[in-house]
């Protein structure tokens, strides 16, 4: 396993109380594999990623338990300086909104080159040459001429390509992409996703793709982990999950996708709202919104039951769900 997160707990101490953002998340990614982490806003998917990268804002954020094994080392036990050397070089992150994730006052070439200056000690001139190479690699037209341009002079799609180039600069073993296409036009989304998938194959990187877009997931992911209220509720190979979800929440998500053959019918929506992380319901966190909830769900937290060797569901009644 390239990356293995085990029983990770993260909480945020705020003035209004403790928000338990991540409550025992476990997942793993192999080299060359794509894991999609799916969930609504506030499900803890981004916080998990920040904890892996070591860029959690603390305070108020705090990792209260678990381990993060990366290439066999527990990242949480490393010194900050050691982690800093891993960041960018061995694992890198692609952010959602490239316009705000790029420094507005620095030319993109300088920002790309910074990777080589920081981690490889290259001279500015060599780093700039590398930057042009990278921009070519992510297919930015006229890279040599545009290396001195500022982020706002690029279109959204081109900016996201630059983000990708920055993340891939040092050919890291692991990439975490936090909703890399959400801020883009639908037409550009596919191009950027294709580019990312292609580069991932080329470099056999592990990819953690955080998203709430089921369409993106189906196309590129090998495995899916569905998160709800800071927990993994279902984890499965992508085709198994689409064929037959083993958790009512996943089923709800799949049912709420608009489909051509349902034209004219009302679109399904999961009723209710995601719980506040300050007051996660007792028992199964999903029970107030679940159509199949019973007494057991209100009192007992369901463990991640093994459905088959490679899939799991955190539902007491996963068998019924699987059968439809």
């Amino acid at each position, binding site marked *: 396993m390239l990356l293995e997160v085990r029983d990770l707990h993260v909480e945020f101490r705020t003035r209004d109380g403790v928000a338990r953002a991540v409550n025992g998340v476990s997942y793993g990614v192999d080299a060359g594999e794509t894991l999609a982490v799916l969930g609504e806003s506030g499900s803890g998917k981004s916080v998990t990623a920040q904890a892996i*990268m070591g*860029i959690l804002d603390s305070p108020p954020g705090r990792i209260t338990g678990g381990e993060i094994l990366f290439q066999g080392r527990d990242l949480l036990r490393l010194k900050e300086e050691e982690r*800093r050397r*891993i*960041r*960018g*070089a061995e694992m*890198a*992150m692609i*952010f959602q*909104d490239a316009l*705000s*994730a*790029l*420094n*507005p*006052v*620095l030319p993109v070439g300088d920002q790309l080159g*910074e*990777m080589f200056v*920081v981690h490889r000690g290259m001279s500015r001139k060599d780093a700039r040459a590398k930057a042009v190479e990278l921009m*070519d690699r992510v*297919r*930015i*037209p*006229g890279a040599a001429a*545009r290396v*001195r*341009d*500022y982020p*706002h*002079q*690029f*279109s*959204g*799609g*081109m900016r996201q390509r630059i*983000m990708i180039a*920055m*993340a891939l600069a040092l050919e890291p073993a692991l990439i975490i992409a936090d909703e890399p296409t959400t801020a883009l*036009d*639908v*037409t*550009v989304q*596919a*191009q950027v*996703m*294709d580019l990312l998938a292609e580069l991932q194959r080329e470099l056999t990187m592990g990819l953690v793709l955080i998203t709430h877009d*089921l*369409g*993106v*997931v*189906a*196309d590129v992911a090998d495995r899916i982990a569905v998160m709800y209220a800071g927990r993994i509720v279902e984890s499965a190979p992508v085709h198994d999950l*689409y064929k037959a979800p083993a958790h009512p929440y996943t089923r709800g998500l799949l049912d709420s*996708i*608009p*489909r*051509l053959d349902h*034209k004219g019918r009302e679109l399904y929506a999961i009723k209710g709202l995601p719980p506040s992380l300050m007051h996660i319901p007792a028992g199964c966190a999903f029970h107030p919104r679940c159509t199949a909830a019973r007494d057991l769900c209100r009192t007992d937290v369901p463990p991640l039951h093994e459905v088959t060797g490679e899939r799991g569901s955190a539902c007491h009644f996963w068998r019924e769900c699987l059968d439809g």
Partner: protein
Amino acid sequence: MPEPQPLEPSSYVPGGTAELVPADAEILRTGPGGRGPRGPDTTAAPSVAAEERVRSLWSDAWHDLRRNPVFLVSALVILFLVLIALWPQLIAPGNPLDCDLAKAQQGPGPGHPFGFNGQGCDVYTRTVHGARTSVTVGVCATLGVAVLGSVLGGLAGFFGGVGDAILSRVTDVFFAIPVVLGGLVLLSVVTSSTVWPVIGFMVLLGWPQISRIARGSVITARQNDYVQAARALGASPMRILLRHIAPNAIAPVIVVATIALGTYIALEATLSYLGVGLKPPSVSWGIDISAASPYIRNAPHALLWPSGALAVTVLAFIMLGDAVRDALDPRLR
């Protein structure tokens, strides 16, 4: 957005699921896939880039400033002031300390366009030579305040924690000290007649103002996504502070410092007027205003010229600060 949009929105909304994405991708691949000159950005980019080349915050600001009459006028005045501060002999070859009591309070005459003051000194020569002290005090005090304040405030804002809490309380204490009263107390014990004790006093009392602004500005900049991105790419804290935060946080400091420059010049005159700033034989507008004020009825010209010079100078710096603020604040654009 220069990206092409070959699909009608209605054709992808109803089926926006797994099946349709690869189809989108196939269509789109013909667009950006080729690296040739017909890529999606190249069609729009050159025209946009030519017109927008290097329009960063700073070049935008410069672009605005050059067209701002307030900036042009104040910059010209300041340029002139700096020139006569450096080389007063250019336009006033006389010696400001060369006084003749016999000519005391005489009005303007040939070779002496501003007349003489109560000590019989040439008002024109003294007014021109007084610019040097004012500009020196203003520039040095501002530099000192800006450097000390932005370093302390920037570090406190960036690292936070105990240091930040202590610094914030210290700035509160300094804000509670009335400047003129503080000057009367602290400077009355100084015997040196140079400008340095006055500058030191201004830095001592002025840095908290800049420090507070720099702190807030750094805290705002620190929350930007690109700072988190820089962290995620392995940049060290110092590198993040100097390369990613400082350039994005410095604008408010520059604005406040420019405006403060004018007020420091006025403060020097105030302190000199009160007898605790510069002392004779230094030549300063404040000293001359102070000396001339008892004779305002007999010899108003001795009061008018140094006061006028002071007012124009302070006004010029405050106008410059205003123009710079307008240019650097994107919200006013």
